């Protein structure tokens, strides 16, 4: 097979796609949706694991929220008392006024709408080591000497929630993606079946004039690959746009967990992973249809 033939085969494959454009678009859209679900869930789950697996320093911090009515003096007293604990390395106070000002700078419409500051003073308790975090959190939650404390959020809890969420996302996502992948395979299979039917004269002539089986299969395989790869490009672009939006949203949350987590996943990884998956789905659909409907 020379370069001339490759061009000819690609042209023949393109003619196939044009002949039943709507069916091709349906196949392409299904591939795109499937890969969006698969890529979206896999990415989300991976991202959560990435955050959890980060340098555990940020999980050494326990957030202690004071009751709204607590006076600043009482808060400072609690801060001093906590600093005296041998498990504690340091305690940082973020006053409700500071939190309000920060919220106002990032989302002025919210502070304007609310008018009154509903936030609480927050003490960020840094544990001396990460393996003491659970013990320190338990002590903070169970002690009675500080009635001003309203809520204690430790990293273990946050990590637990995140990991559980990641597992749910991954499992549901994989189940949905598998079901969609099966549907996609069937749609690609049916599209190629239609092509085989509409190209029956060409295939008959190809056989009679002595075209090799690969020459007959190639335009059909190209068609399957086209659906898979184009679908993956659409899915990748949609996912990257969605990821950028989510990232912008999480930045507004000012979460100490998500904001600083670097990610190994970028556009190259998304295009590569979805491209390969899409190509494999397209290839499998076309090979199945060829095996079933083309008698060589």
């Amino acid at each position, binding site marked *: 097979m*020379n370069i*001339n033939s490759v061009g*000819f085969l690609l042209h023949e494959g393109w003619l196939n796609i044009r002949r039943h454009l709507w069916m091709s678009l349906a196949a392409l859209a299904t591939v795109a949706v499937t890969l969006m679900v698969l890529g979206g869930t896999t990415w989300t789950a991976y991202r959560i694991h990435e955050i959890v697996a980060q340098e555990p320093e940020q999980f050494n911090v326990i957030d202690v929220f004071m009751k709204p009515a607590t006076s600043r003096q009482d808060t400072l007293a609690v801060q001093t008392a906590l600093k005296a604990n041998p498990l504690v390395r340091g305690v940082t106070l973020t006053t409700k006024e500071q939190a309000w000002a920060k919220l106002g700078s990032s989302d002025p419409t919210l502070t304007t709408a609310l008018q009154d500051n509903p936030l609480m003073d927050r003490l960020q308790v840094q544990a001396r080591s990460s393996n003491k975090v659970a013990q320190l959190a338990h002590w903070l939650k169970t002690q009675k000497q500080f009635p001003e404390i309203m809520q204690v959020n430790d990293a273990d809890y946050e990590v637990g929630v995140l990991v559980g969420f990641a597992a749910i996302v991954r499992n549901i996502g994989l189940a949905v993606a598998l079901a969609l992948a099966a549907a996609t395979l069937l749609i690609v299979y049916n599209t190629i079946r239609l092509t085989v039917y509409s190209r029956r004269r060409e295939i008959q*002539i190809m056989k009679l*004039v*002595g*075209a090799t*089986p690969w020459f007959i299969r190639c335009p059909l395989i190209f068609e399957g690959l086209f659906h898979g790869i184009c679908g993956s490009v659409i899915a990748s672009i949609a996912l990257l746009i969605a990821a950028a939006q989510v990232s912008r949203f999480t930045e507004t949350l000012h979460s100490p967990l998500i904001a600083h987590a670097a990610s190994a996943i970028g556009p190259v990884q998304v295009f590569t992973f979805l491209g390969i998956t899409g190509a494999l789905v397209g290839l499998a659909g076309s090979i199945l249809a060829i095996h079933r409907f083309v008698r060589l």
Partner: protein
Amino acid sequence: MTTTVANVATRPLNQRTAISLKSVSVLYPGHCQALSDISLEISEGEFVFIVGASGAGKSTLLKLLTHEEVCTSGTVIVEGFTVSGMTHSQIPALRRRVGVVYQNFGLLPDRTVYENVAFAMRVTGAGRRDVVRRIPEVLELVGLQSRPDAFPGQLSGGEQQRVAIARALVNRPKLLLADEPTGNLDPETSLGIVDLLHDINATGATVLVATHDVAIVDKSERRVLEFADGVLVRDEACGRYGRVALETCEEQA
């Protein structure tokens, strides 16, 4: 059942064999005997008519030669290829040596004359330059050099059959098989097609024509193989559609 051959055609000893069948039988499912114990040889450059009623085995014989059908027993050799027992990977090489023309033309309606003929070249791996060089030659041979951009729907039946012949010839096959090539054509056009087949034969190609057309067989007076119920009942070197006295032919020879 024994094969009755009225007059086995003779051929010059120095000619190479294009087609050789030895004790070939084809049995379709349901114990339907399509061909029964056929033995024959056709030399390179011969022009042969295959005649007989519908279901006599004419088309089966042609399909055997391109491996569209496989014989149940016996040996089929075409252009040096032992077709019986051929592997799938060997079939394309055989088919590149054999051109086929059908009654219904089998053209691609959404492609022009040029594209129809070019398609047969491109799918065998021919480059664009070869196509550009070869197609005007072959269109001129079939008399369609002025209609390369016409679509099959814009052509008469005879012209469509000429395109089909051009397509069959474009890869320079050694053997041309025509299954009822004049079946859809009026008598005058039919004679034109047969003249074209004779011209092709004159270039050295072996030509086999399966037909019901009495006029073209009688006018041509070439070798005739007659089949009846899958049996070769007549092989005349210079035959007519029906049985005739041999003297006429011998006189002409």
